[in-house]
């Protein structure tokens, strides 16, 4: 199947190095201490953060840092066929672990010992790149909750089909069986914190694809910064000078 | 088994290996004597049986005990052990000494300790302490002073490297005359060492390579005779120089 036409257009009309449309809204969940809604093309996710608050399970309390918990679920209606098990299957467990460890890298946990931070991410519509959208949404939600962080974490995916590196794969391109590289970076230092890859790729092509995904992450970072600055300005108007 | 000849057992088992169930003493043959039983022995009506596998020892005038080597430590009063701080409470520090329960170190149990100068130990500090009380069923009590109230080298240990061994090996390291491994190492290298009877050993030296050499040499010497130990140390030293 052809994923890149001879003119260089992909199935949805994008160029190989073009990302999908990004949209973000902060404060989507009223009850949560911080929340955000993030869209990457047709992938829509919502993230809610609670904390820092008292540890619910005293035996898991850490005396020198905050306990970070994360739960990734996909809504039953998020994919084409109705999903019978939204959470608890192995893929969700792994992605929960991945998101938790990625966010732990940027949260300053030692400033909040003996407390707990919960991150809940739910995928409302899945069209490829759900992992990246979840991390971006979680970053916004954590910033909204005012939890101290070293840096933002942004994520984007890239692939390699028809001998072309493609940025931000959608579901059809993802399930084509080609390689799928998901990268999460800390934008200020461009250090890579999350890197996942499956399928086979020669090493030099992998470097190009990873580079492309990193550029995508930087673009997402710029967008997230803008959204955050706008929201903060809005809030300052009510509280401030 | 041993019931057939009760009276001949007492002299023949001293300094010999016993297994659980062996009757080592028959009290009906001794009268008007007080016998002190140490670890590993239990009284069963008129006979003393071994509870642990090990070597039966006797010290004048009347102490019997079984010496065995395990990975876990059974706290007993008067031992000097290495503990790790787990938590700080109002009255005590909670210390882990590799025993069945955590031990309490009162905050005032330091030389010249008053309410005003309570030391601050962070979680994970390594401390050289003395076991004061170790009753069955209660958490052991520790102290950073010796019996007369002096500090005598008890207290937190800075830098260096700690590793775990069996209780038998740590007893051998503390035996006098000096243990062959330590003697052979001490001839060529200079280092500081603290041995806890609970199977923890702390080594410190100027260069990390010395520390690594010493720790690996000690860990390897568990089952070697004194001649083999000297050879092993020589080989290790040759390889690094």
């Amino acid at each position, binding site marked *: 199947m052809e994923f890149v036409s001879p003119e260089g257009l992909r199935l949805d009309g994008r160029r190989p190095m073009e990302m999908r449309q990004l949209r973000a809204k902060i404060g989507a969940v009223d009850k949560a201490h911080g929340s955000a809604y993030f869209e990457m093309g047709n992938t829509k996710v919502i993230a809610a953060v609670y904390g820092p608050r008292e540890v619910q399970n005293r*035996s898991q309390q850490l005396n020198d840092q905050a306990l970070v918990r994360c739960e990734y679920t996909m809504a039953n209606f998020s994919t084409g066929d109705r999903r019978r098990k939204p959470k608890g299957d*192995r*893929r969700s*467990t*792994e992605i*929960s*672990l*991945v*998101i938790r*460890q*990625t966010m*732990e*890298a940027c949260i300053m946990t030692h400033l909040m010992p003996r407390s707990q931070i919960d991150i809940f991410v739910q995928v409302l519509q899945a069209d490829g790149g759900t992992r990246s959208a979840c991390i971006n949404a979680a970053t916004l939600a954590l910033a909204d909750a005012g939890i101290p962080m070293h840096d933002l974490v942004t994520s984007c995916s890239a692939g390699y089909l028809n001998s072309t590196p493609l940025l931000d794969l959608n579901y059809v391109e993802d399930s084509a069986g080609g390689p799928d*590289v998901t990268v999460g*970076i800390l934008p200020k*230092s*461009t*250090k*890579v*914190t*999350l*890197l*996942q*890859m*499956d399928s*086979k*790729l*020669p*090493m030099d092509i*992998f*470097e190009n694809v*990873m*580079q492309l995904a*990193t550029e995508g992450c930087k673009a997402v970072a710029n967008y997230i910064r803008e959204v955050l600055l706008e929201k903060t300005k809005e809030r300052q108007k009510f509280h401030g000078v | 088994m041993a019931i057939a000849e009760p009276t001949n057992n007492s002299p023949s088992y001293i300094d010999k290996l016993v297994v659980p169930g062996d009757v080592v003493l028959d009290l009906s043959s001794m009268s008007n004597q007080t016998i002190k039983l140490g670890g590993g022995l239990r009284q069963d009506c008129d006979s003393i049986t071994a509870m642990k596998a090990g070597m039966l020892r006797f010290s004048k005038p009347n102490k019997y005990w079984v010496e065995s080597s395990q990975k876990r430590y059974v706290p007993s009063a008067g031992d000097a052990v290495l503990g*790790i701080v*787990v*938590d700080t409470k109002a009255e005590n520090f*909670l210390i*882990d000494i590799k025993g*069945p*329960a*955590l031990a309490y170190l009162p905050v005032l149990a330091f030389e010249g300790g008053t309410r005003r100068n309570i030391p601050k130990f*962070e979680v*994970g500090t*390594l401390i050289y302490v003395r076991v004061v009380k170790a009753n069955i069923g209660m958490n052991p009590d520790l102290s950073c002073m010796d019996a007369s109230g002096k500090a005598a080298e008890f207290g937190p*240990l800075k*830098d*260096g*490297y*700690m*590793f775990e061994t069996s209780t038998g090996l740590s007893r051998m390291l503390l035996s006098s005359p000096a243990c062959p491994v330590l003697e052979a190492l001490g001839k060529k290298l200079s280092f500081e060492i603290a041995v806890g009877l609970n199977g923890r050993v*702390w080594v410190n030296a100027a*260069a*990390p*390579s010395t*520390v*690594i*050499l010493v*720790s*690996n040499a000690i860990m390897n010497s568990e089952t070697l005779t004194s001649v083999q130990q000297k050879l092993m140390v020589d080989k290790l030293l040759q390889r690094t120089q």
Partner: protein
Amino acid sequence: MEQRLASTWRMSVNEKKFIESSLLSDLRADGRRPFDYRRLTIKFGREDGSSEVQLGNTHVMAFVTSQLVQPYRDRPNEGTLSFYTEFSPMADPSFEAGRPGEFAVELGRIIDRGLRESKAVDTESLCVISGKLVWAIRIDVHILDNGGNLVDAANIAALAALSTFRRPECTLGGEDGQELIVHPPEVRDPIPLIIHHLPVAVTFGFIGKESIMVIDPTHLEEAVMGGRMTVTLNTNGDVCAIQKAGGDGILQSVIMQCLRIASVKAGDISSKIKNAVESFNTERALRKIKRHSSSSAVEVSEPAQKGGTELSRTHVGRLNSTPEESGVGQSNGMEVDGKILQQETSRRDSGAQSFIGGPSSW
């Protein structure tokens, strides 16, 4: 809460600082250099498809079994490969019995991705009847002792077990040609799996603020490290899978450096696996020859038994070829002549044990 605190393994601040500072002089706590692997031993059980790997103090076992199942609807021509892990609490006090924890799921998925997505095992050859019956290969890995770096050890165990696994041969037979006959191993030799390449996992740990890389972290180093990355690659220069799930950030150049080092290590490990598998296969072949010589000695004493198994026929045929040299005419090795066999029987009983020696024993 105190009960739980008393039973977990604890680490002191001194150990953490020592590991970080000795790494600055390129030394690790057990005397290795940063890019050295621990000693690796690969052993096999008597059955095909079972392996036992010891990497330093880490001890794992892997078993491969196969079953005939219906294929997935969207892949009617391919067999399936599934990977399961068993984290027994005897390996580490922090493992809990029952449901696999997050770490067990992550390990299973890393190895699963490395094997399945990179098409290391040929799944199309596992198809028996398209759309109805395919072979499902199931790999079970049991962790016996956790000394650190379970991913690499489990991966090596799985690869070794897959390389020595043989599945029964099956043919379509019966009246309408649609019935499936699965031949037991005594009748027909089981067939090995077709493995295109060996995806080897190499795990890096990043310790300290400078994120110094170490390969094959021990249990102690795992507790101290700030980030971990597992790279799965094969000896053809392909990267099959990468897993770096959060943790400290590292630069892209460092990632490429890790990949280059990993490809060298992967080459070492693949050759070790291949050598171990080869020696196991030669042993297996030797064992088979010994076994068949004893079985054919029994058959030969009843030459009237017709419809004997193919195997005994071929072996008797081989035994019969030697009488040609001694001048006893025998046209077709396959046709068994009772009389000649009876002549040979007496010599056979003494010579059966030394059959491996071949014609020279006659």
